[in-house]
Structure formats: structure tokens, C-alpha cells
């Protein structure tokens, strides 16, 4: 019998610390599979953020840097400039990327930093115990919104891909999820494209992955996937929001 599925090389043997059924693990594996398939584990540098994935530096086989909360894309910008041939990516949660790190995100995107951003949207602050995130849904019950997120006082969720898709520096803005085998395959193709864009110099690529937090949602892993389908996908439609080459926006300067 031949092996038809095994752990990718770019994922280390360290056991993941994530809660049972947390889809952070699936996304880690997909990133590692893509690093393997593109043969870039040796020149990749990942930036771990603050959140449950803070220790992702233990799991990816490539070089890793751990950035302060929200600063991953600023660190990635520095790496981009210091290592012109490096394959630079960040791995960030929604609290990190869309709350404390919103400025870094928007400006890295509009500068067209040639980096790959893997964005885990689980509609909550996982690591700190389930507080409301900017991405928490209207009426969603969290530790800090026990009666549900009231949009009158807490405002509306941020749709990151839609927002960034308006910026000329962005090459790819795509929202995917990992709730089924079919969607895992789509997610992997998007992540691969986000890395290929960087290698080809097309500009900033972000893949937003709708992800589960069974622990802080108070659901079993299987029920959490259903909650994601019923509540997150309607508010955060899956799909490609931008697919371009930032260099097309630079032509006017050269002519």
C-alpha cells in the first residue's frame, strides 16, 4: 500500500496546543502543504502574531519571527526589505489583524507590500477567553457581550476582504473556509495562489479563512462548523474580492 496522505514536511512534529477540533490546525497544515509544494520552506520566513496562534513558530518548519500584538505586517514589511528573495508570510487572528493591527494591515495592503497574509477570522478573541472581536457578529454572545453584540453601542463587524479589495496595492483578497473537504481544497488553492503571487511579485495577497473557536463559542467541534455555516458565511460571503497585479496600477508612472 502507498501512502496517499501524510503530514507535510513544513509542519514540525510538535503537537499542536490548539483545543480539540479548532480549525487553526487545518489551516496550519494547508500552509505547510503549500510551502512543500512550492519548495520554499528553506527561504520562507513566517511572522507569528499574538492570539492562539502565537506559538505557530513551533509548528512551521521555516524560520519564524514572533511579532507584538497587531504588528505582524509591519514586521513582515521589514523582512521583505531585508530579504528580497525571502518568501514572507504572516499568520494572524481577527483580534490581531482587524483590531489592534488595523492600521498595519491597511497600510501594508495599500503600500502593496509583496507579502502573503493568512487571516483567521473566528469572530472572537480566542486566546484571552472569548471577548468580542471587531468581527463578532451582530447579536453574537461573547464574554463581553453577554446579551449579544449590540450594534447601537458596539458598531458593526469589519469585512476585511471587502475593505482591502478597494486598495490598488492588493493583488488577492479572497475569503474561504475549512468546514468541509471541498472548502478545504478551495482554501488550499487560495493559499497557494497567495504565495505564488508573492513569488511572481504581484503584490499584497490576503486569504481570510472563516474558522471555528469551539471552546469560546461553547459548541462541540462538529456543531461549531455548523454554526459557522449558519451564521458566519451569510455575513461574510465566501469568494474572490480582488484578483489583480499591483504592477498594472504602476504603469502610468513609467510611461
Amino acid at each position, binding site marked *: *500500500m*502507498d*501512502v*496517499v*496522505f*501524510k*503530514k*507535510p514536511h513544513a*509542519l514540525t512534529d510538535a*503537537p*499542536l496546543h*490548539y*483545543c*480539540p*477540533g*479548532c*480549525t*487553526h*490546525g*487545518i489551516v496550519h*497544515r494547508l500552509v505547510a502543504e503549500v510551502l512543500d509544494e512550492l519548495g520554499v520552506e528553506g527561504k520562507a520566513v513566517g511572522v507569528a502574531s499574538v492570539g492562539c496562534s502565537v506559538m505557530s513558530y513551533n509548528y512551521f518548519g521555516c524560520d519564524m519571527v514572533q511579532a507584538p500584538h497587531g504588528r505582524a505586517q509591519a514586521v513582515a514589511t521589514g523582512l521583505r526589505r531585508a530579504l528580497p528573495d525571502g518568501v514572507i508570510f504572516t499568520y494572524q487572528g481577527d483580534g490581531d489583524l482587524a483590531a489592534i493591527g488595523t492600521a498595519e494591515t491597511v497600510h501594508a495592503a495599500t503600500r502593496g507590500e509583496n507579502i502573503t497574509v493568512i487571516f483567521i477570522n473566528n469572530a472572537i478573541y480566542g486566546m484571552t477567553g472569548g471577548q468580542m472581536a471587531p468581527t463578532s457578529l451582530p447579536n453574537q454572545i461573547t464574554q463581553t457581550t453577554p446579551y449579544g453584540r449590540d450594534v447601537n453601542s458596539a458598531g458593526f463587524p469589519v469585512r476585511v476582504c471587502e475593505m482591502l479589495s478597494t486598495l490598488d496595492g492588493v493583488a488577492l483578497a479572497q475569503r474561504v473556509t475549512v468546514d*468541509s*473537504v471541498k472548502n*478545504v*481544497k478551495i482554501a488550499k488553492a487560495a493559499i497557494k495562489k497567495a504565495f505564488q503571487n508573492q513569488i511572481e511579485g504581484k503584490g499584497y495577497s490576503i486569504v481570510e479563512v472563516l474558522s471555528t473557536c*469551539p471552546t469560546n463559542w461553547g459548541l*462541540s*467541534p*462538529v456543531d461549531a*462548523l455548523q454554526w459557522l455555516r449558519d451564521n458566519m458565511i451569510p455575513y461574510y460571503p465566501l469568494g474572490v474580492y480582488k484578483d489583480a497585479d499591483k504592477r498594472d496600477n504602476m504603469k502610468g508612472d513609467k510611461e
Partner: protein
Amino acid sequence: MAKIIVDENVCKGCALCVNTCPKKIIALSKSKINAKGYHPAELTDENACIGCAFCATMCPDTAITVYK
């Protein structure tokens, strides 16, 4: 002929593989408990596995290796 091997010490008993298997031949062990305190997933019918790797695709802990 196909089969899966579950790394019992890595498995967290989340049941995403159980839920995904099209042949419904994975179950969480009733008798075993691993060092972390989880009931690991196990194949209940080796002859029925088609090696589709759906289980491994959904496993967050990459605990499953698939042979065909």
C-alpha cells in the same frame, strides 16, 4: 484495499473525521484513552475504507495517515 493509521497520542478526539467519513467507519474509541485524556479515533471496518482521505483532510491535528 485502503486503511488509515491514527496517531493515538496526537488525536484529540474532536470527531471531525468521524463526521466526515463517507463510509461511516470511524468512531471514537470506547475502551482507549490517551495520555492527554482523549478517546482517540479508530477505524471500525478495515475492509470498507476507500482511502479517500476525507478524514485526514478535516483532521486539525494531522493525526491521520492514509494508505491505499
